[in-house]
């Protein structure tokens, strides 16, 4: 990106911010498959609107379309933040329908699910480049965070200058290791939580207000 393009983008961001100060910020919930993105999206939506965003499942790629929950108002320390939550499909560089056969699916269903999953990942990448104002990056704290998808996505988010909150999910599980996530991405603050059990959601909401307000 050259100087003029950078300046134009910077000016555009500032003017957009001025004229759209009251517009809800679109916050994309990103991360690898099965990190608990939809569980978190549902937790936030239920806590502040009473509705859910979408179905949760232990089968990878349950979310195969980006789903938006609009006008979620979060109040923190006398401050009100309005966001649109965008729950995105888990990002990966590979999808093999055979992996779904292990989850009691026949070949036809597995192939359809894999095709929808690939479309969903492509859509999620497009949203990230074009349509989100901030990112909540969800990681499963029981798994190794040093994966290429995590490295690339964090790099893409940083290159777009998007505010990003890293959440170490699944702290209710005994294998949870929040520190290894903090070590993998030392340039970002890591917030531990269990979206399933609702643990540490107070801090998550405080950080959402701080990062995206």
């Amino acid at each position, binding site marked *: *990106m*050259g*100087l003029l*393009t*950078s300046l134009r983008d910077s000016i555009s961001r500032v003017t957009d911010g001025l004229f759209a100060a009251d517009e809800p910020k679109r916050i994309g919930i990103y991360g690898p498959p099965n990190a608990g993105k939809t569980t978190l999206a549902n937790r936030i939506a239920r806590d502040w609107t009473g509705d859910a965003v979408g179905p949760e499942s232990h089968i990878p790629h349950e979310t195969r379309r980006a789903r938006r929950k609009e006008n979620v108002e979060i109040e923190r320390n006398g401050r009100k933040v309005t966001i649109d939550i965008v729950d995105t499909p888990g*990002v*990966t*560089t*590979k*999808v*093999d*329908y055979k992996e779904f056969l292990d989850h009691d699916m026949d070949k036809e269903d597995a*192939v359809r699910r*894999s*095709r929808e999953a*690939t*479309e969903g*990942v*492509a859509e999620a*990448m*497009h949203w*990230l*480049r074009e349509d989100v104002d901030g990112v909540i990056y969800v990681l499963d704290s029981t798994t190794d965070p*040093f*994966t*290429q998808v995590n*490295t*690339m996505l*964090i*790099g*893409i988010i*940083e*290159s*777009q200058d998007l505010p990003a909150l890293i959440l170490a999910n699944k702290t209710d599980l005994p294998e949870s290791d929040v520190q290894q996530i903090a070590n*993998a991405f*030392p*340039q970002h603050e890591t917030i531990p939580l269990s979206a399933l059990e609702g643990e540490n959601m107070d801090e998550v909401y405080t950080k959402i207000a701080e990062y995206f307000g």
Partner: protein
Amino acid sequence: MPGAAPDVDGGDDPADDGVRIDMISGARMEGLTSMEKIRLILDGVREGNIVILEEGLSPDEESKLIEVTMTEISPDDFTGIEIETYPKPDSGSQSFLDRLMGRESTQKLTVIGPANRIETLHKDENLISTLVSRK
């Protein structure tokens, strides 16, 4: 296509006996557009080759690579890619002026291969260990 890797012909395909590795220099990638780079990579990978980029891709190009890869996955034919690079160094090492001028450093050795032939055994900040299988 400007940056296409040359075909290796001449009778039996040598890739039948082993794994072909294309090591692409930064100079070769320099004049290519984002889509030309992505095509160069994916065309090689879809033929079963391992592609090593001396200088890697920009974050935006990596994003597009994922997107295009997803559109090309098809059952029993192509299941996607495995890609490995070292984590990006601390962004503090890049000056504000560099970023303002678009001089984003993308210099990171990158290995890309077919998902069904390359498996990462270990990865940390300083070491990437992968297992490459034959067809």
